[in-house]
């Protein structure tokens, strides 16, 4: 593939503060990657989100985060036909030229709606990559994590190994699938389909270091404007505090991660603990083998007795 102009780390910066929840990225992703629809049912647990979650056939997913206080996460009950809006909604102030819509919206109560275009994080320490026994999952020249569909045999070990719940096995196709960061497009020097289609540039694509710098600047700008809760999920952390070693696709969020269904801390599970677990297990295996041998040796001189018993019954020695 001589077309690859560069082979530096490439990634996504998804700025949720400008996402309008149009789901154009989902559609673009499905079209480019030839993925089927998901049936259009609402997500369980009370949400207007009709594409549920990331799956083997949904590689970009605009998560709808309903913040309805108190006890957020419940579907707002729509007023019955013809009835007025809830009394709590204040009148839009009239007669002023410069209405502060933000202030007005905030005075209307705490209910808000957040959108976040979720995607595979292309982790530096990728759990799925560590787990894959066939080598179907590999790290590309763009430092992204890609599943080779012609190698994957659908063992399913990558699925519980992903702390973000991204990769999944398609029950009809039988193979694991997830976002490839449009590996085929990257090889042609094109930006991924979702970033291309995003009308508000909530999804930004580019060389990783450049994106991180831009994202950090964005957080600082938001803080200066008084949005103190803005932070980066997956980039800009000090060493030792990174999520899975730093996320190739990172996010600007304004609520705590669990609100978006993201873990507050994460790393490749295999990197975290496979050594200790293996040592404990192998030690136990040795103890068990020794224990079995010991149980045979307990009553004095077993070998004599065994020999005698075998001889009595005429068994071959």
């Amino acid at each position, binding site marked *: 593939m001589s077309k690859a102009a560069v082979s530096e780390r*490439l990634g996504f910066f998804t700025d949720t503060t400008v996402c309008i929840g149009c789901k154009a990225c989902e559609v673009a992703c499905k079209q480019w990657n030839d993925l089927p629809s998901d049936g259009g049912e609402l997500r369980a647990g009370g949400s207007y989100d009709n594409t549920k979650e990331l799956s083997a056939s949904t590689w970009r997913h605009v998560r709808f985060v309903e913040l309805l206080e108190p006890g957020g996460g419940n579907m707002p009950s729509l007023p019955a036909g013809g009835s007025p809006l809830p009394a709590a909604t204040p009148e839009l102030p009239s007669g002023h030229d410069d209405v502060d819509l933000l202030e007005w919206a905030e005075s209307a109560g705490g209910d808000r709606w957040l959108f976040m275009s979720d995607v595979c994080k292309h982790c530096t320490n990728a759990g799925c990559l560590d787990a894959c026994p*066939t080598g179907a999952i590999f790290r590309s020249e763009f430092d992204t994590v890609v599943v080779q569909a012609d190698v994957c045999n659908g063992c399913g070990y990558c*699925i519980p190994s992903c702390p973000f719940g991204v990769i999944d096995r398609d029950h009809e196709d039988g193979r694991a699938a997830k976002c490839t960061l449009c590996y085929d497009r990257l090889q042609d020097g094109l930006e991924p389909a979702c970033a*291309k289609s995003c009308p508000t540039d909530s999804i*930004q694509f580019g060389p990783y270091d450049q994106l991180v710098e831009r994202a950090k600047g964005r957080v600082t700008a938001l803080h200066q404007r008084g949005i103190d809760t803005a932070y980066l999920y997956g980039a800009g952390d000090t060493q030792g505090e990174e999520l899975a070693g730093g996320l190739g696709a990172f996010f600007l969020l304004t609520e705590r991660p669990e609100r978006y269904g993201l873990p507050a801390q994460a790393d490749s599970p295999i990197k975290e603990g496979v050594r200790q677990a293996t040592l404990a297990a192998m030690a136990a295996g040795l103890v068990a083998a020794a224990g079995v041998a010991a149980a045979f040796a307990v009553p004095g001189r077993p070998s004599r007795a*065994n020999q005698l018993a075998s001889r009595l019954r005429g068994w071959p*020695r």
Partner: protein
Amino acid sequence: MSQKRLKLVPALGTRGGPARWRREREGASVEAHEQGFKDGAWSFLYGEDTEYATTARDDEVAKASRRARTGAPPDVVQGPVMKPAVWTWEVPLYFWTGGIAAGSGFVALACDLAGDSASAATARKVSLAALAPSPVLLIADLGRPARFLNMLRIFKPRSPMSMGVWCLTLFGNLIAAAVGADLLGKHREARAIGAVAAVVGGYLGSYTGVLLGSTAVPVWSRSRLFLGPIFVSTATGTGAAACRLALVATGVPEGHPTRLALGRVETGAIAAELALSTINERQLGRLSAALHEGGAGTTFSAAKWSVRAGLALRLLRRRGGPVTHHVASCLYLGGGLAFRYAWVAAGRHSAKDDRAVADTARGTGEGKAEQ
């Protein structure tokens, strides 16, 4: 741009058809795009004169992230956070058969060491018989069973599944060779190969616990130091029980030292299994709910009561006679199978518990990681 006529020939494949991996024409490219990912830079956000971003203050950015990702979790977790494993009944059944194979390998080695080579040969046959369905079960669980050989494409020490597949392959060949040597009457060779197989079996019986423990599923990952030992105990107990029943069936008389020793092995291994499970449940704290609730909980308590009944029967051995012992061995085997199912089902339950997943990740769950 408009002056230039675009040649709208697809770079990949033919128009309207599915693209192939290779280009239709060598060196073909998509028209009207800018090389070097400059397409993305068309956005006004990339301009110098926007108010989108300002000069970054690194410490402030890191602090904001730390603030959001540490401390108390929010009241609501709007999951799903992670996905449960898609494995079906074949996998826990394999854990059971593979465990019996590994445990029988231990028994064969011990019989050889104790000088009872006839029983050792029987134990090796039990091991091979238990191992034979294992690859079939694993292949049946694959999404693409025809591609099972891809498992042997690479050797990957990092991945417990890759190591397990290699271990299973090695163990299968060794135990088959040992049984073959037995049948040919080459007892020395059978003993030597059987001894190597028993060592390999030490990993075969335990790696399944490592495999589950090295995932992001809370109840598995927080049991990671215990799962291997628990699984080895189950393997030893069920392997010894299977060998004991096989020896009885082949006419080894009551009171034979090997039968007695196997009875002790069974009881010891199952008692160790129960003790380790209890300690593990304690250290799991709130996460152990996955082992008590729903279908997994029912199976888990059935497994416990089954092996407890077996232990009780063993303690009544004076009055019971040999049939009681056979019932106890069957209870151990059944209990072992139920334990395997329960652990896999508990993982599914735990991964779906968004609050448990989120709290474990944040480190605010009661059962914190044993680092």
